[in-house]
């Protein structure tokens, strides 16, 4: 089921990419290695072409998109690198992870521009450390697992919102999401240590071995029940039919008990 859903997700993403990439048509990248201010200027040009229609010419926000003044570099970096922006899912839908529409240099430019619009959280620096995994686990189970699931497989939040799976989130993106609270997610105001711990545990989940065999989703009894019936009971059913079949000619050596 996991493989199927991944395949489905890939197909959807490929489809989206085919549909959306020509429509957005980012301008060709410039060759000069620019400084912070130049970056912001470049970003402004890109912003005017690709973002302003929803977020407003100055990032002040419109009825189609929220204000970005004070969103900060972390928010822009998260939204652009996870492909959630540009938003292509249609009105009322939730922005989903997809391949980034811009290249690295363009993203840096846009991030610099959004950061220049007002004070907001900077792109955090995150260190993944094995020693922090237990602490991260405790925080994760208490504060992240209720929506994202104990193994970070994602979950339904209500009101149509889905907490996404965390299997592709990089440590920096995990920290960015925590300090900016994208979409329905609340802001978690952890310090550097706390960010490192949670990012370390998410990284552990992504690379952890699966003791006990195929993880079948890691979400507990729903897939387990299906496997019990579709693999276990079905197999035993076939065995029962084979064993219970009449192997002798009809009425062969049957005994009758009056």
């Amino acid at each position: 089921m996991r493989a199927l859903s991944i395949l489905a997700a890939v197909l959807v993403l490929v489809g989206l990419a085919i549909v959306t990439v020509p429509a957005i048509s980012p301008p060709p990248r410039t060759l000069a290695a620019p400084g912070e201010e130049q970056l912001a200027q470049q970003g402004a040009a890109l912003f005017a072409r690709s973002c302003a229609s929803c977020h407003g010419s100055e990032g002040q926000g419109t009825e189609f998109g929220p204000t970005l003044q004070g969103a900060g570099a972390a928010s822009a970096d998260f939204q652009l690198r996870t492909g959630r922006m540009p938003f292509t899912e249609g009105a009322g839908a939730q922005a989903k992870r997809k391949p980034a529409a811009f290249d690295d240099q363009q993203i840096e430019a846009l991030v610099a521009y959004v950061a220049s619009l007002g004070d907001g959280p900077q792109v955090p620096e995150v260190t993944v450390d094995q020693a922090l995994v237990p602490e991260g686990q405790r925080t994760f189970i208490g504060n992240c697992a209720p929506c994202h699931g104990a193994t970070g497989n994602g979950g339904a939040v209500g009101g149509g919102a889905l907490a996404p799976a965390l299997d592709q989130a990089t440590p920096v993106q995990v920290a960015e999401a925590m300090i900016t609270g994208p979409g329905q997610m609340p802001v978690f105001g952890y310090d550097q240590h706390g960010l490192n711990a949670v990012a370390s545990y998410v990284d552990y989940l992504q690379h952890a071995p699966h003791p006990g065999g195929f993880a079948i989703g890691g979400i507990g009894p729903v897939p387990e029940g299906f496997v019990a019936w579709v693999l276990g009971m079905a197999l035993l059913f076939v065995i029962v039919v084979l064993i219970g079949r009449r192997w002798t000619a009809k009425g062969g050596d049957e005994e009758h008990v009056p």
Partner: protein
Amino acid sequence: MLRWLDERLGIADWARSGLRKIFPDHWSFLLGEVALFCLVVLVLTGVFLTLFYVPDATPVTYEGSYLPLQGQEVSAAYRSVLDLSFDVQAGLVMRQVHHWAALVFVAAIVVHLLRVFFTGAFRRPREINWLVGIGLLLLALGMGITGYSLPDDLLSGTGLRIIYSAAISIPLVGPYIAFLLFGGEFPTATIVSRLFVFHVMLLPALLLGGVAVHLAILWRQKHTQFPGPGHTEHNVVGKSFWPSQVFKSTGLMLLVAAVLALMGGLVQINPIWSYGPFIPTTVSAPAQPDWYVGWLDGSLRLFPPVEFTVLGITVPAPFIPGVLLPGLAFTIMTLWPFIEQRFVTRDTRFHELLDRPWDNPFRTALGVAALLVFVIATLAAGNDVAAIIFNIPVEVMTDVLRILIFVVPLIGFALTWRVMHELRRDDRVGPARPPVVRLRRTPDGGFEEIEASD
């Protein structure tokens, strides 16, 4: 040696007739045996697990080999299951085989129950064994619920919280029942050791005793059989226990064990290390019970949250979907042989021959409808997981299921009713043949009908 035994116990005649017990030749009679052999695997693996499990909720520090929990405070029970999973030779595979065997055990019981229901095997004189069987099903569910809760992980703690809430929701007596079971207000330190006593002593004793009674009655009353040449209401036709059935059953037992070992060895089940230790202030999601309790959870999820007061007594929201409706469903199922005898067929004769499902279309259609209600309620327990898979809001999913749980069983009833009636007619008069029409070609190329002569 045998002679020595027989001289003292005088059991040769008894054993000889026992060995000649007749087993009718139909695969569906083996379904109950699958459940029996799952039980054998459950007892064997369960004994192994009992050697390492610690039924104690005292907080301790985990120092085992699973990195994310090192240094954390967990209950002694949870730690013992972690140690069993990571630091005891073959511990994890034993745990997994035990848990898979539990899931398949109840599945086999349900399939066996369906066989008995749809073939009318519960009719007179076998009502007693139907009651014993329902008792065994209840005990199996009790074993499942208590076993699921023993590891003291976050998921099972959530399950216990729901059970506590359902118990306390019973008007008037609820709080007393809940406190009696849990020894106080949830969460209690005593619940783990109480569950342990239930899971390894009380319920298994009743379950194994019940199985003995179930089989003894079967032995005494003899098997039923499907209608066939030489099969009458006064005989049993089949193969004798020795040698035919002994080999079949032994083979089946080994294959059941093999399938369960295969599942336990290859497929992960209940990764309690991922869920984390039970912390009263935390709830994890998605949280589901094992499949056989899903219909109760689904009932809670589908039923609108209504709470009302009658004569000054408040009826809390979980009572109707969590206690009343399931209780009603189980009561009807338990009493079905008597209900059918009294109100449906008015048939009080003795039966050794089974019904084919189409021999009693009403019973079959009703069974299909009830089964569909059960299936949809079970699916509803996974409404949040389904919402992710189908990528629709969980509220929409719930509303869709609320409609389906009424519509699908009705359609199922009507369709089954119709098909069973046609099968019954075919069975009696043979399949309907199209009327014969004779045609004559006219000289100008047209056709005209000749009056049929038959």
